[in-house]
Each structure stands twice: as C-alpha cells, then as structure tokens.
C-alpha cells in the first residue's frame, strides 16, 4: 500500500486527502486496524507549543542615508542588544537576550520581564521597534550613530531561525533540596514539592516520528502561526539516546533547527516568555505533518502518552552539576493525571508546554492540508538517525596555558 509524498500531494490538491491529528489517530487506528488506517489516512498532524530558548531572528533593516555599518558596532532593539557581527545592516536577535540595565538575578529571583523573545513577539505583532546603534564609521559607511523606529512591514527581511526547537522528549524537573529553586523548568518547590514537564507528549512532532523517517531537512511545517521549514537537525540532536521497545526515546534526544519568514507569522504563536530567576525566552508553536507512507509510519504516530516515558531529574544538584543520575521514569499519562509518585511521595505536576495550544496547532495544520492550502515537502536530506552514532557530548575543558 506504500504511498509517496507526490501521491499524497495530488490528493491534497484535489481536496481529497484524509488528515487526522496525532491525538485522533490513536483511536482511529485502534478501531480500524493498522493496515486499513494506513490505507485510508494520508497525513497525521502534530503540534507543540512551549518555551524554546534556541530561538532567534535575523533582520535586514535596510540602508540609511548616509550609510552606517552596524557590523562591528553596538545595536539595540527596544534596548535589547542584538548581534551585529555580520554584514552592514543585518542583525541577529536571540530569544534570551536581556537589556544591559536589566538587574538579572541581582535581586533574586530576577523577574526578567522583557528580553529578546518579547521583542520578537512585538515585532511580529507589527509594533514599531526602537533601533539604536553606534558604529565606528568608515569611508564607505561614514555614519556613526543611528536612532530610529523600525517596523517589520518596512524592513527587507525578518527571518525566524531557531537553532534548537521541538525537543524529542524532555526531563521532568524536580527539586531535592530544602529551598525553592528558580529554573528554566519553572519554580521548583523544595523536598520534591512539585514536578514540571515540558513536551506535548503524544502530539509532539518528533515523538510521532521517532526514527526521523519522514521529518528531514526541507520538511515544510507550521511555524509560529505561518509556514516554516526544517533547516537542519537542531543543536544537541542526540539520536542515540536511550529508547524504549517502541523506538520512542526515553530521554531528551532529537531536535530541529527551523526557519521561516517572520513576516507571515503571528504573535499568538511566538510569545515572549519570562522564567522567574532564570531569564527570558520565546514560546514557539511548531507543527509537522507526517505523511503516512507505510504501516510502519502509521504505527509510530499511534504513540500515546502512556507509551512515552520521561526521566525525572533533580534540578538542585544532578542537573547543575551535570550528573547523569535520575530519580526515576514516569509516563506522560501519569504526568497529565496531575499527580505522580516519586520516592514514595505524592507530587503535583505542572507543565510548561501547552497541550491545548499544541492541539490547536495540529488542528490548524490539518485544516490547511484539508483545504489544499498546504502541500507536503519532500525532505532533501534525512536527519541523523541512530546509525549516525551522534551523541550529545559534554564540554571537554582544557587549560589555555599562558
């Protein structure tokens, strides 16, 4: 029954493709049986919506008269510093960048109310952004100072380019110490007081394609409310992480680097985010379509929260000290029940990733495909898989000497 992406696209063009979400597919395939479901279903849509620090955007602001070379100078957008060490009027804004005068954790825990992620959200929302820059001046770029409002609709390019997004599985964070800690996994109460997790589980893109059989470089996706593409495997991509019998990673493993035109994205899917005592970031909405090319691929999309295990990690000691110890494993079904048992203690759970929003993304993508507005893209290169032998390495520190 094997189908091809070209055949599925033909059906999409005719408005005849059968599209279901990664949540719907679980019961449909159980009811109809794998082989019939694989025959009937053309695409399974996924979604995830969570804080993703590996996010940022490139902007080309256009040349001023007289010209200024921002490269090598200092540039700020709404007082948030951007990276200017590239061509004359290109800059890169990272999601975690903070204004120079933000007190950070000087008053612990710092609030981090405004940073790079918030600038990206406001930019996408069409708000005017204050650009202030100083440069050293050259014969061809004489100007040394620039202060202007810019707007996404006027600048040449605004490109979202996230180096690491959509983690395939992630830690469940807890705190073994006797005081509150403030982490990128949220506020963790002492003595195993709460447990925070952060994936969409059964809806998450890479958990539905555990061996990267369909998602690859060039895959067209839902990104920030618009269209984007998988640019590469994300940084820290770790395909050789421990996996269960179902092939699903039991640790943080695969990641995606994604790219897209920020001008067609929407602020409700790129939300500036503040983690108390930790910093700023961007909450990103991503959804990938999975073409049902075979029964095997359908079977992977049938993964449910009960089949996905995540490691429980102590963020007071094991995580900061880069120790591999875990406190145990727990399924997303257990996590989503609201309470888990850890070391004999009944612990309430919270999430940083929004399941209702992930569901909405999978549904929007489904609608786009059903209406024939979104065709699937054939990947141009696969993501490194288990056979690549790629692992996630710690830093090998070496003395610099004199």
């Amino acid at each position, binding site marked *: 029954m094997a189908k091809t992406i070209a055949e599925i696209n033909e059906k999409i063009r005719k408005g005849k493709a059968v599209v279901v979400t990664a949540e719907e597919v679980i019961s449909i395939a159980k009811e109809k049986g794998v082989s019939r479901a694989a025959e009937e279903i053309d695409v399974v849509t996924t979604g995830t*919506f969570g804080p993703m620090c590996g996010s940022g955007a490139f902007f080309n602001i256009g040349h001023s008269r007289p010209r200024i070379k921002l490269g090598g100078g200092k540039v700020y957008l709404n007082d948030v510093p951007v990276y200017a060490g590239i061509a004359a009027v290109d800059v890169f804004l990272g999601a975690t960048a903070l204004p120079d005068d933000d007190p950070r954790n000087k008053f612990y825990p710092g*609030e981090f109310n405004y940073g790079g992620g918030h600038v990206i959200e406001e930019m996408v929302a069409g708000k005017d952004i204050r650009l202030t820059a100083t440069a050293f001046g050259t014969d061809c770029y004489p100007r040394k100072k620039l202060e202007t409002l810019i707007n996404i609709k006027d600048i040449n390019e605004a490109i979202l380019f996230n180096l690491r997004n959509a983690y395939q599985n992630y830690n469940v964070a807890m705190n073994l110490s006797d005081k509150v800690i403030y982490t990128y996994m949220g506020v963790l109460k002492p003595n195993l007081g709460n447990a*925070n997790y952060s994936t969409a589980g059964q809806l998450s893109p890479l958990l539905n394609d555990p061996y990267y059989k369909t998602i690859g470089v060039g895959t067209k996706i839902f990104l920030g409310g618009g269209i984007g593409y998988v640019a590469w495997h994300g940084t820290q991509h770790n395909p050789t992480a421990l996996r269960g019998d179902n092939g699903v990673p039991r640790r943080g493993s695969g990641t995606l680097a994604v790219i897209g035109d920020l001008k067609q994205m929407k602020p409700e899917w790129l*939300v500036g*985010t503040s983690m108390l005592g930790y910093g700023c970031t961007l*909450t990103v909405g991503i959804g990938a379509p999975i073409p049902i090319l075979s029964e095997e691929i359908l079977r992977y999309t049938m993964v449910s929260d009960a089949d996905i295990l995540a490691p429980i990690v102590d963020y007071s000691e094991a995580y900061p000290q880069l120790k591999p110890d875990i406190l145990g494993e727990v399924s997303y079904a257990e996590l989503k029940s*609201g309470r888990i048992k850890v070391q004999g203690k009944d612990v309430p*759970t919270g999430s*940083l990733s929004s399941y*209702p929003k992930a569901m909405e993304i999978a549904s929007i993508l489904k609608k786009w495909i059903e209406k024939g507005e979104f065709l699937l893209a054939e990947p141009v290169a696969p993501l490194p898989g288990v056979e690549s032998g790629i692992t996630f390495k710690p830093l090998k520190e070496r003395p610099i000497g004199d």
Partner: protein
Amino acid sequence: MNVSRRIVLHFPPNITEQPVVYRLVKDFGLTFNILKASVSPGEEGLLVMELSGEQKNYDKGIKYLTETGVEIQSLSQDVVRDESRCTHCGACITICPTEAFSLEPKTRKVLFDHNKCVVCGLCVKACPPRAMILHF
C-alpha cells in the same frame, strides 16, 4: 439587602486572643470565609476574609470590629488573568497555595477559580507569559 466584601483585618497584639470572628457570627449573623490568616498570641494579627450578610448587620459587625480596636481595610488588590496572554501551559498549577488553578480534564485548559484566590501573588511572577496581573 445582602452584601459580601473582601476585607483585611489588622488585630493589635492585645486582642489576638479574643474570639472576634465568633462574635461576628453569633451577634450579627454574618458568614465569613477566611482567605488568609496570620495570628500568633502577643503579636499583631492579620486576617483576610470575605464577610457576608445583610447590609444592616454587616455595618453593625464592622462597627463592632472598629470599636474592638481592629483596623479594617478593604481588599484593594486582586489577581486577574489576562485571557489573551494565557497559553494554558499549567506552570501556575503547582505554584498556587490554595489550588485556585486546575485543569479542565477534557480540553486540558487551565481553569482559574477566582473565589479560591487569596491574592498572594505567587502566580504573577511565576507565570511565563505574564498573564496573571495584580490589580490595585
């Protein structure tokens, strides 16, 4: 006419051992819901509560409290949720000491029960998209 107000009571150290709330119920027929309490013998006490009853009795109760030496403030702070910023992630759920947040099982949306909120403000800074707002 019935009234229901959220008030903050400051007890001077000398009356923290008196059954003030009991008198409100017994003598004035008022009902109360304690939202926050910090009462230690010999120290100044603080009680945040919702006090309800008939306007006439409510006024008498307040008069009684004032005469006893209790300082009364209306609860001027309130925590509200900016629905346009809430992403329904759930980071607030385990932070709230009074379990004012819960998950709607079917949609997995985060529900905020304003009546359970004691305006402690813990969720305000712990909310990643800053959807919880403290109003004065």
